[in-house]
């Protein structure tokens, strides 16, 4: 048996998305910028896809820029708002401590260029409040960027309320909605969002394609110079097959959010309940305000990479915030941001479900994780010291 429980990393493409892509590979393969018929057909498809995406997000199609994915969209959103702020002498940006690196590393770069960056505390539950944002905004603030839902621990921020604060204070509000789009009801207009990033492969679309939405009045700064594609804001011949696959996947996902989220969150809660039975374990992130698919635990006394390898042997494909899985020396910045000590953050496990996950698979995963955690603890000197009272448990 193999169980794919890493849907926050990427998803399997849906049949609908694949079928939507195929005609644009060998039949309507024209360049949308070409004047001949096959080019113009591709151009019409591009326009239709743009409108389809806009309809799913509740925004104006003219605000949609197709990108290579979420990271590019995040980079362009932040650099555009920063450039706009700089022109007005505003060089302060507010974000959170546990954003995706596409956001954090872009902010680091701006900090080196003289911007002041405020990273809000995300608390132990992985949530910020609109009041924190309101308190942090100053006359120099040119951008607030807060992720819609966290990629590791799945917590969902009060986006509408944060957007309202930003709107009232006249500050641009960007949200990295890569984990949320296709899984939660999102309406850009109603939620006071000025800019939004998304990535197709997180909702059963193809990899290498995404969207940056920017409302009218926010001029984008080019990351890629060249031709006049995407109103001159993103050069390069459009990846039509991928864009068609994305639009189809998004429409499909948005059309069944209520039923899939009810189904998946029931399995999530079953999985959380099962894993909570493991002694000295803790759920990371708020239990209620979290993505339907996300389960993230820390287990004291063990290390995450060995946990993943042994789960892989049992056919369970998962992920961890352990340093050993990241190639760096530090464990997940997200787990550190919610206050988990290093030694605890190393022992983390993320299981992210999809609508294909079954109850039987959840039962199997609970047993598999229990077995592996218990085995790794049996060979861990850290666990021995904890059990013998030579050191104190961090997780009770």
């Amino acid at each position, binding site marked *: 048996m193999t169980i794919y429980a890493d849907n926050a990393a990427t998803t399997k493409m849906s049949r609908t998305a694949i079928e939507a892509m195929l005609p644009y590979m060998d039949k309507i393969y024209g360049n949308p910028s070409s004047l001949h018929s096959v080019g113009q057909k591709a151009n019409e498809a591009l326009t239709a896809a743009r409108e389809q995406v806009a309809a799913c997000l509740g925004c104006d199609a003219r605000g949609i820029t197709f990108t290579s994915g979420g990271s590019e969209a995040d980079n362009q959103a932040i650099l555009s708002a920063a450039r706009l702020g700089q022109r007005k002498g505003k060089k302060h940006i507010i974000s959170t401590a546990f954003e995706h690196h596409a956001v954090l590393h872009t902010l680091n770069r701006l900090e080196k260029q003289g911007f002041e960056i405020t990273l809000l505390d995300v608390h132990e539950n992985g949530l910020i409040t609109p009041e924190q944002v309101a308190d942090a905004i100053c006359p120099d603030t040119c951008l607030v960027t807060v992720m819609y839902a966290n990629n590791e621990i799945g917590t969902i921020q009060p986006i509408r309320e944060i957007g309202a604060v930003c709107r009232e204070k006249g500050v641009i509000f960007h949200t990295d909605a890569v984990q949320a789009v296709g899984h939660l009801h999102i309406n850009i207009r109603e939620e006071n969002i000025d800019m939004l990033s998304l990535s197709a492969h997180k909702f059963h679309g193809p990899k290498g394609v995404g969207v940056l939405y920017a409302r009218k009045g926010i001029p984008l700064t080019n990351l890629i110079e060249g031709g006049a594609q995407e109103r001159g804001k993103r050069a390069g011949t459009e990846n039509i097959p991928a864009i068609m696959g994305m639009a189809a996947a998004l429409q499909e996902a948005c059309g069944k959010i209520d039923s899939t989220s009810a189904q998946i969150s029931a399995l999530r809660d079953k999985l959380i309940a099962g894993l909570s039975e493991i002694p000295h374990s803790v759920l990371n992130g708020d239990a209620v305000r979290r993505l339907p698919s996300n389960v993230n635990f820390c287990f004291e006394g063990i*290390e995450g990479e*060995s946990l993943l*390898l042994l789960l892989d042997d049992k056919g369970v494909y998962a992920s961890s915030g*352990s*340093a050993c899985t990241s*190639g760096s020396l530090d464990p997940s910045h997200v787990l550190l941001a919610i206050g988990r000590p*290093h030694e605890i953050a190393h022992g983390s496990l993320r299981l992210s479900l999809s609508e294909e996950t079954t109850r039987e698979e959840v039962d199997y995963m609970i047993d598999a994780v229990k077995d592996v955690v218990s085995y790794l603890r049996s*060979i861990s*000197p850290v666990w021995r010291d904890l059990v013998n009272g030579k050191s104190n448990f961090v997780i009770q």
Partner: protein
Amino acid sequence: MALYSEKVMDHFRNPRNVGVIEDADGIGEVGNAKCGDIMKIYLKIENDIIVDVKFETFGCGSAIASSSMATELIKGKPVSEAMALTNKAVAEALDGLPAHKLHCSVLAEEAIKAALEDYYKKNGLTYDPTLFPNCANCGHCCKADQCGQ
């Protein structure tokens, strides 16, 4: 997983010499939980021969495999041979480790040296302290500012 050689996966999945020796003649523990790796080695030494060795490890796949291989390489050998064990020998016996995992083999070498140093101390034997790891300035396992030792 292609990250590791078959040998590493074998020693990770079926580690040799896991456990504790209650009346050990030498015990060595190196690494730091903050950095994600701790190795503990127990030695039973009779007539200058390592007659038994056990280990416990908190760490990633290569840390567990390195501990297992290192114990295999010194079991039944004279103390002098165990002293001469290098991290390179451990890594080679595992058919190599990824570059960012080489520190695991270093930890294995140091855990054995730490256990031998403990044996020398307990038995009042004279030894050259410069041959043994000093955690205060090792830097192998983690950044110095994270090292609590």
